[in-house]
């Protein structure tokens, strides 16, 4: 029960994204992934960054597009949508040029921007209602 409340709180603080804090964390994670990929190449760092990146952006997308669904379905849709978005932006960048490390970082940045802006747009909409 306590765990569920804390998770709910975490979800709320991510979707509130006050002062773009969650978005900034997401950008820091992208920088971490970039540095890890270019120098350290540690799987442990990679997996932690991956989980956090997915959590933040999937919650953004879930809030933006599947707000009315129940919590579990909404999160699952958020994750699926994030995978689709990553795949689509990655596909587009790959077709235009390629997916080397700088381009890959660009893909993550574009995805974060889209997720964050979608979340903010929906939040503004629901605030004005």
């Amino acid at each position, binding site marked *: 029960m306590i765990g569920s409340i804390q998770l709910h709180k975490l979800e709320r603080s991510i979707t509130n994204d006050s002062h773009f804090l969650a978005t900034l964390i997401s950008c820091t994670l992208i920088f971490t*992934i970039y540095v890890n990929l270019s120098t350290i190449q540690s799987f442990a760092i990679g997996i932690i960054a*991956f989980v956090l990146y997915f959590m933040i952006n999937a919650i953004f997308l879930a809030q933006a597009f599947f707000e009315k669904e129940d*919590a579990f379905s909404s999160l699952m849709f958020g994750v699926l949508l994030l995978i689709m978005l*990553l*795949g689509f932006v990655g*596909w587009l960048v790959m077709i235009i040029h390629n*997916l080397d490390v700088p381009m*890959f970082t660009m893909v*993550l940045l574009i995805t974060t921007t889209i997720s964050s802006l979608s979340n903010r747009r929906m939040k503004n909409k629901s605030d004005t209602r």
Partner: protein
Amino acid sequence: MTLANQTSKLLRISELLYLLFTALSFYLLIASRTGEAHTVWQVLHPAFNSTLFIATFLLFTIIFTAEKTTHKLLFIISHSILIHSLFSIIFPAGDLSGQQMILGRTRLVFDNAVLHGWTGWRPTMPVSTFVFEMFKGINLQAALSTILARMFSLDLLYVHLFLVPVLWGAFIPVASFLTTKTLGVSENASILSSLLVSVFPYATYFGAISVPNSLGFIFFFYSLYFMLRHLSTNDSKTTYYMVIFSVFSFLSHYLTGIMSFSLLFLTLAFKTYEGEKKPSSINARILLVVSSVVCLSLLPLSFIYMKFFDSTSNAVFTLDKFYELPLQEIVGLFFLGELVHGFDLKTILLIIVGPLLALLSMIYQLYNLRRNPNDKIRIRIYFLFTAFLIILVDYRILKLFMSGLPINEERLWVFSGFIAAPFVALAIFAILSSLKTFVKARSPSTITFAGLKTMSKSDVFRVVSLLLAINILIPVLLGGWITFSLSAAYPHVAPLQTTWYELEAVKYIEENTYEKYNVIGDIWTIFAGEVIVGINNPRAYYFGEQSKIGHDLFVNMSRDPSPRWMLWSMNYTNTKVAYFIVTEPRVGTEEFNEVLSKAKENSLQVYGHPEGFGNGKLYVFSYRKE
């Protein structure tokens, strides 16, 4: 202690046991990992089937309790990932199939060896072909695998191997759950359907291999869910999602894409029918039938028109099979398709029992709904029934009336499995509910062991046997069904999978060669090369799987292992070093020994370990351009 507390305690114990047996099953899979086997059944730990059966049985008992839906779904997801990971965990390079070819191409994107994706833009390429190649599912999957591998900072091989098993395991049960829920049934029946997707062997197989078609199936299932929602809502968001998932289904693979769009048009036709049926019922029905026929024809026609984009495509409508095959085989193909060729009765039964049960369940549901024409669910069940029939008819058209198809038409079983799963769950749940009603009607509201003493012997026997049937027999039967279905899903006959020594040799060459090189080898060597360096990589060149030049070079080298063929290959591929790989289990001991002695006669230098790789089962010869 109250009854509720006791039940809760029992539930927690069941859940702990379930987790234990699932973890044990994963452990047994890891323990079965091998670098030299033909099929998973050859090396699978003997206790795996038993632990999987017990885990599945426990999962079914948990499903029928009042546990939270989220928890049940999480348990089902872990179970689903387990049964789709056999290839990826047991074989070091996964299943020797299309998934290794996809990896070979993805590797080039990952290593930045190509621009603009696989088969990117060339000046000689017609624009239509470029567009076709660009939209091929391999590019979407390559992008996704590359991004995930870079995020994890992990080699592409591992991400590629587990991409589909994990995505399928996580998202297909949820899609099945949501789809069944749109039919207005209880949460428990919906949960049941999310586990029952695993009883369809073709679906399990496609969930175990990382190919674009499998990704497409995932998106198809979600597009189907939104289509069902769209039928009884005017929410614009649902329409967008329906289209977006169909587009992604198409980007992943044209088969799933065409199927998604066929059903999307069918959805629109059903929606129009709902709007028009009151003023003019007959016209609306005729329109619906015509639309269904159009939707049905989209898949076969798309294969015919594919030749405008892909010059290698040569699908045609033909009656050849009717002229060439005996009547008995035609009838067999019509009813069972590919299953008539070499499948045993058990496998045939396991493959057809699910769709058959679903068909009966659909007919029963439609029969029940005829008294309730205004029921919202009615249109959804009619839609699914029509979609199911379209897939059945399309399969027969592809099987009997067409030839030269670019894909195996057996893949259509996966679509029918997705549509069938909710109806199988409905049928089983209806049986369970009837049994429960029967028990309730013939027993006091609460039965205690003390209370049993007051009942007559025949009543006690009836009540106890029904309770056993509900709580033990049905979970045992369903657990057994899923476990047996696994044996039909994973092949029992296959060529020798990529071996550890083939991988070791390919890795050794890659790590110790600093110039551009090419490798002459049989198709199995090419598969191993695809896993490590990719296909047609200009820096580390392996000829394509269907390359005639590559094949001829290997045949010539096997007959006459001399530097001249290696020099020729170096000139052809613009490389500095050439390697020739010969493997004993692939060519046979006699030919292997002959090649070795001839190579030594021709003073070809053995590369790497002088005694060969894999305890002498594989030799690498090298030649360097002066």
